[in-house]
């Protein structure tokens, strides 16, 4: 009790003299001293950990590491970095080529679309015209224009009939 009082008086004196300590310092100091005492005693009994290495291990380890770094060095020397844009001229020329190619692509694409549209219109118009003409007129027109064309012989007609009777449309299209 007397000692505590003495301590607190002593502390008070120090504080009054302007000295301070980190917060909780005296609480931690107790733990620090205790931990230090235990480790000192332990160190006297167990100065080393007991792990070992194979003979000449560290000499070999150094050689292994140096061999690996040398390999890395060689690899980095062999990997030659080629700059894509060596000069401004090449840069601008590439950009111009790109613009020309893109422009041509766009131009031809538009033309192709127009041509396809035209073809579609022509086909539809022809179909519409044939639809409007009478069937008899068309037959007469064909007969008048293709008089020279050979008429199928009886032999051919028989063959035609045989094929139509014995084979389905699927068989025929499959073999064509």
């Amino acid at each position, binding site marked *: 009790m007397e000692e505590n009082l003495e301590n607190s008086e002593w502390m008070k004196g120090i504080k009054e003299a302007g000295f301070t300590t980190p917060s909780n310092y005296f609480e931690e100091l107790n733990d620090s001293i205790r931990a230090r005492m235990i480790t000192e005693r332990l160190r006297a009994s167990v100065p080393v950990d*007991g792990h070992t290495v194979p003979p000449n291990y560290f000499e070999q380890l150094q050689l292994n590491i140096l061999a690996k770094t040398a390999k890395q060095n060689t690899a980095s020397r062999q990997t030659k970095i080629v700059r894509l844009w060596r000069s401004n001229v090449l840069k601008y020329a590439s950009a111009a080529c790109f613009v020309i190619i893109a422009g041509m692509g766009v131009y031809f694409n538009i033309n192709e679309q127009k041509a396809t549209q035209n073809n579609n219109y022509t086909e539809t118009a022809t179909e519409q015209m044939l639809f409007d003409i009478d069937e008899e007129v068309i037959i007469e027109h064909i007969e008048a224009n293709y008089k020279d064309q050979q008429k199928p012989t009886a032999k051919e007609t028989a063959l035609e009939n045989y094929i139509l009777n014995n084979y389905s449309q699927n068989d025929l299209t499959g073999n064509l």
Partner: protein
Amino acid sequence: MKQVEDSEILEKFSNIKTRDEAFNLLLNKYQQKIYWHIRRLVIDHDDTDDLVQDVFIKVWKNLENFRSDSQLYTWIYRIATNESITFLNKQKQRNNTPLDEVSGELEETLVASSYFDGDKIQMKLQKALLKLPEKQRLIFNMKYFDDLKYEEIAAITGTSVGALKASFHIAVKKIETFMLNEDITF
């Protein structure tokens, strides 16, 4: 043999002509320290061998970009610590091991190791250490075996000095209790 200064190593490394010499000096200075730092964490010699090589390859690749605002040895220790913890985490994932059972696996490795010739008390201390959480084990090893200062450990682990002290005190208490329970007096 006089230890070469880190500043000299860095200066030589910055010159392409003396780069290999600088790296040789760095290996001479740090390879054993880093080996033992990793070994105490991963226990197995072969795993340590792989990791220590990986660490120095990383050092080689990145030393050119190393900024002198931190010390060279804390930087190398930090790489080694990160590699070791990553390795231990991968080992846990690979074996589907719950966090609290990792110590059991490491203890088995320690007992089966042909590169451990410690006596009874050394074995007990290692077993006590393997019962600790990873961070407490890491801090205890650096303080007890590597004799690093709290400020240095703080720079390596990125933890405040106050938190480190608290972790170390708890670790020491746990080790003492474990040793006393195993009837080991020191």
